[in-house]
C-alpha cells in the first residue's frame, strides 16, 4: 500500500536555520557589507539580494578527526592501467598534502567560502546598523503631518461636480417604488370595483332595470381613478431628496515621502575620482533615506558658474569647465523646492558635494540664501572632496552650522573614507547637545 502526497505547496523550511546562521556571522557579515560599501561597485550596492561571502573557517564545526598527512597509510584505488606490485610512484612536489588533508575534514570543503544571500532589507539593516537620521527626533514629533483628501462616504448635498449618479438613481428608484406602491394597490382595487360595476350595469340594462344609481357610482369611481392616476403620474422621476454626493474629507496623514536634492559641482576641477566619491556619498544617502521613507525622489542639480537640473546620467557623466559659483545651485534648489516639493508636504534633504572652489564674493550670497533655505530642510549635507586644506566655503558652512544643527559637513579624499565618514555623520550616540 503506497501513499502519494504533494508537498510542493508547503514551501521551504529553512528560514529558522538561515536566521541562526546570520545571527552567528553577523559581525562577519557586517564587515563584508561595509567592505562592499567602501570599495565595491556602485551597481552592486544598489542591487538587491546580495550574496556575501563568509570564509567557512568562521563557521567551522570542530570534531575529533584524524590527520593522515604525516603518517603511513594505505589506500585502495580504482583504474589501474600499468602498475605492478612493488612499483613506486613519485610523490608530487610540495608533499601532496592538499589531496590528503581533505580526507580528514568531515565536510570536505577546505577553505572555500560560503555565500550567504542577503535580501535587500537585511543588507541595508547591516549596512546602516546603529545609524539614524539626525533630525528624526524633530520629525517624529508630528510636524511631518500633512492634510490629505480622502474619500469619506456619501452625503446629501455638495457641489454638482461631485454628484454620484449611481447612488442618486438608486435613491430615486427607491423613493418612486415606495411612493407608488400604495397608490397602485388602491388603483387596482378601484379598477376591479369599476369592472364589477360595469358588468352589473350591463346585467341590469339587459333586464331593463333602472341603472341611474349605478351610473352615478360609476362616474364617481371614474373620478377617483383619474385622481389616483394623476397622483401616480405626479411622482417625480428624480427629486431633490434623491441627490447623493461623493464626500471627500481632509485627514491628517504623515508624510512618508522624501526628496533628496543632489547638488554637485561639475567645474573642471571635479575629476572622475571626485565624482566617484560624490556618487558613493549620494548613493549611501539615498539608500539610507530609503529606509525611513516609503519613496524617495531625487533631483539632480549640477553647477559651475550657472546651475541646471539634469538627469542622473548627465549628472555623473557631465564634465564642464568654467569658473564656479555655488549660489546659483542653492537658488535653483530653492525654486524647485517651492514649485514641486513644498516643504510642508515633503521631507526635503539636500546633499551637496563640491571641491570648495567658489568665488570669494559669492560666499556672501550663498550665506544669505542658505539662512533662508535651512529652516525648511530636514538636513543639508555638505561634503568637500579632495582638498588638502579647508576651503572658505567649508568654513562658512561650519560657521552656519553653529546655529543650524541641520547643516552637517564632512571632508573626504579617498573612496574608503566615504563609508566611515557616513557612519560618523549618522552615529546614534547620545549627543551632549541635548542635555
Amino acid at each position, binding site marked *: 500500500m503506497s501513499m502519494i502526497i504533494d508537498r510542493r505547496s508547503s514551501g521551504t523550511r529553512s528560514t529558522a536555520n538561515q536566521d541562526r546562521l546570520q545571527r552567528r556571522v553577523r559581525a562577519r557579515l557586517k564587515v563584508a557589507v561595509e567592505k562592499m560599501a567602501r570599495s565595491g561597485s556602485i551597481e552592486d550596492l544598489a542591487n538587491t539580494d546580495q550574496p556575501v561571502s563568509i570564509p567557512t573557517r568562521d563557521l567551522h564545526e570542530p570534531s575529533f578527526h584524524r590527520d593522515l598527512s604525516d603518517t603511513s597509510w594505505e*589506500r585502495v584505488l580504482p583504474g589501474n592501467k600499468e602498475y605492478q*606490485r612493488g612499483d613506486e610512484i*613519485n610523490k608530487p612536489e610540495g608533499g601532496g598534502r592538499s589531496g590528503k588533508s581533505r580526507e580528514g575534514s568531515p565536510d570536505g570543503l577546505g577553505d572555500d567560502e560560503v555565500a550567504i544571500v542577503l535580501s535587500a532589507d537585511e543588507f541595508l539593516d547591516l549596512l546602516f546598523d546603529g545609524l539614524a537620521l539626525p533630525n528624526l527626533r524633530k520629525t517624529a514629533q508630528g510636524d511631518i503631518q500633512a492634510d490629505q483628501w480622502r474619500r469619506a462616504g456619501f452625503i446629501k448635498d455638495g457641489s454638482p461636480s461631485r454628484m454620484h449618479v449611481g447612488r442618486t438613481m438608486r435613491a430615486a428608484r427607491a423613493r418612486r417604488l415606495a411612493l407608488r406602491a400604495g397608490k397602485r394597490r388602491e388603483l387596482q382595487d378601484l379598477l376591479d370595483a369599476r369592472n364589477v360595476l360595469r358588468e352589473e350595469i350591463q346585467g341590469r340594462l339587459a333586464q331593463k332595470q333602472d341603472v341611474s344609481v349605478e351610473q352615478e357610482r360609476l362616474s364617481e369611481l371614474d373620478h377617483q381613478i383619474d385622481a389616483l392616476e394623476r397622483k401616480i403620474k405626479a411622482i417625480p422621476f428624480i427629486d431633490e431628496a434623491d441627490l447623493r454626493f461623493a464626500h471627500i474629507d481632509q485627514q491628517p496623514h504623515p508624510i512618508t515621502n522624501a526628496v533628496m536634492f543632489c547638488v554637485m559641482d561639475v567645474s573642471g576641477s571635479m575629476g572622475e575620482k571626485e565624482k566617484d566619491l560624490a556618487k558613493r556619498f549620494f548613493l549611501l544617502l539615498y539608500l539610507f533615506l530609503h529606509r525611513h521613507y516609503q519613496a524617495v525622489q531625487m533631483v539632480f542639480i549640477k553647477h559651475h558658474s550657472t546651475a541646471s537640473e539634469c538627469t542622473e546620467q548627465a549628472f555623473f557623466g557631465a564634465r564642464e569647465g568654467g569658473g564656479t559659483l555655488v549660489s546659483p545651485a542653492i537658488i535653483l534648489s530653492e525654486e524647485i523646492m517651492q514649485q514641486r516639493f513644498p516643504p510642508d508636504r515633503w521631507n526635503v534633504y539636500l546633499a551637496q558635494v563640491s571641491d570648495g572652489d567658489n568665488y570669494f564674493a559669492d560666499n556672501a550670497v550663498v550665506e544669505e540664501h542658505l539662512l533662508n533655505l535651512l529652516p525648511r530642510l530636514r538636513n543639508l549635507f555638505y561634503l568637500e572632496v579632495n582638498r588638502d586644506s579647508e576651503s572658505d566655503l567649508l568654513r562658512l558652512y561650519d560657521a552656519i552650522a553653529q546655529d543650524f544643527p541641520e547643516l552637517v559637513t564632512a571632508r573626504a579624499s579617498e573612496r574608503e573614507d566615504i563609508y566611515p565618514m557616513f557612519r560618523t555623520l549618522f552615529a546614534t550616540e547620545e549627543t551632549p547637545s541635548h542635555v
Partner: protein
Amino acid sequence: MSRFLFTDNDWTFARIDAVTEEVAAIAAEELQLDTYPNQLEIISAEQMLDAYASIGLPVYYAHWSFGKQRAIESGQYRRGEMGLAYELVINSNPCISYLMEENTMTMQTLVIAHAAYGHNAFFKNNVFFRQWTDAEGILDYLAFAQRYIARCEERYGIDTVTDVLDAAHAISRNGVDRARRPRQLSAREEEQRREERERYLQQQLLEIWRTLPPHDTSQPVDSAAFPPAPQENLLYFIEKNAPHLEGWKREILRIVRKIAQYLYPQGQTKIMNEGFACFVHYHILHSLHARGLITDGTLLEFYASHTAVTFQPDFDDPRYSGINPYALGFAVFQDIKRICLAPTDEDRRWFSFAGDPDWRKQIHFAMREFRDESFVLQYLSPKVMRDLHLFALSNDPDATAYRVSAIHDDSGYQYLRQAFARQIAESTRPPDIQIVSVDRWGDRHLRLRQMDSQPLDQEEAQKTLHLIHALWGYDVHLDMEELSLSESVAP
C-alpha cells in the same frame, strides 16, 4: 492495445500510482522484498535543498550549521556544480521517499524502484538498521526534539541553546554505542518522563558528588576508579555525569545522541545500501520492460541515468573523488547473482555458495547480515576487483615515492580485499577516544584517552576539547600517544 504505463515523459499522479502498483508487484513476486508501507512525497528543488541541509530528516530542530550547509549547497546548485539527487528516502515506518517535481516519468519510475523498494527493504531488513534504529518512533521523536529545542530557545535564549548544540554536535560522532543495542526510543514516553528524569538526575548527581565527611578527611571514602571501565560514549557519559549541567542541557545532549545513534547505521552501510537499491531498480526496470509495461525509449533513458549513477572514474581522472559506493555496491550485488547462476572455477574456489540456484536467498542474506566492512571482506570477488582495476597504494611519510602494495592479480586479491575493508573501517569510524577517569574527590577533572594510534588533528582536537570543557565545567585532558592536550577553567 498497448499496455505501456506511459509513453510520453510527463509524470502525473495517476501514472505514479499505476507505476507504483506494478513495481510493488515485481518487488514482491520476483525479488520477494519485505518492505515498510511507502509514502511518496513530491517536492520541489528548493525543498530538496532543505532536505539535504538537515541530513534528509523531514523534521529537525533549527541550528546554524544546517543553514550553512544549505548556503553551500544552494550556491553549488545555482552555479551548476552540483546536480540534486533525484530522490531522498527516510528510514521510517511508513518509509518516506521524496520525488523531485523536475524528474521525468522515467526518473520517477527509477526513483520508486530504487528508494521506495530498494532502500526501503534494506532499512527494514538489514541487521544494523534493525538493531540501531527505530523506524516506528523516529518521526515522533524528531517532532519532539524540534519542539523541545524550540521551547528551550524561548526560555533560555537562542545563543545559549546554540552553544550547547555546538558542543554536542562536536562529539556526536563519539556519542554512539557501537557495541550494544540502544534502548528503543518512544517519543510519547520521552515527553512524559522527561521532567521526572531531569529532577531525578539532579538529585542523583548531588549524591554522587557529595563529599561525605568521613572521620579521616585525608583519605577519600571511595578511591575506586571512576568510571570503572573506559567509556566510549562521550555524549552519554557527560549527559549522565557532568557535575553542574542544567537539566535541559542534559536533555539536549540526549536528543543529539539519539539522532546520532539513529544515523549511525547509514554511515556504516553506504556501499551495501546504495548497491542493493541499484540492484533492485536494475532488476525492476528490466522486468517492467520484459512485461511490456515500459517502452524501449524509457529503458534507454533509464540506462543513461543508471550508468551515470554507477560510473566509477579512474583514480587519475579529474572527476575522481573516491570509490563510488553506488558503483561498487551494484557491482558486488550483481556479481553475487552471477556467482549463483553462472559460477566459474575461480568463483567455486572463493565462494561456498557458488552455483546455488536460489540467488534470491543469497542476495537477501548478503543484504541482511553485513555492514560495508564485513560485506567487502565477504563478497568482494576477484572478478569485481579485475573489472574495477583495483590496486592498493601505500605511503611511507619518509619515502619519496608511494608504493603499489597490491594489484588485481592472484597474489593480490586477498590483500586488496583486506586493505579495502580496513580503509572502510577507518573512514567510517571516528577516532577512538574514551573517558578513562574523573577525579571525583579532587578537582573533578575529566581525563580522555585516545585508544587507537592514528594521529589526531591537533588543532581540531583542541577546539573540540574546548567545547567538551564548556559542557563538563571543569578541566578536561586528552592523552594521546605522544602528547596530551588540556583545556582548563580560566583563572
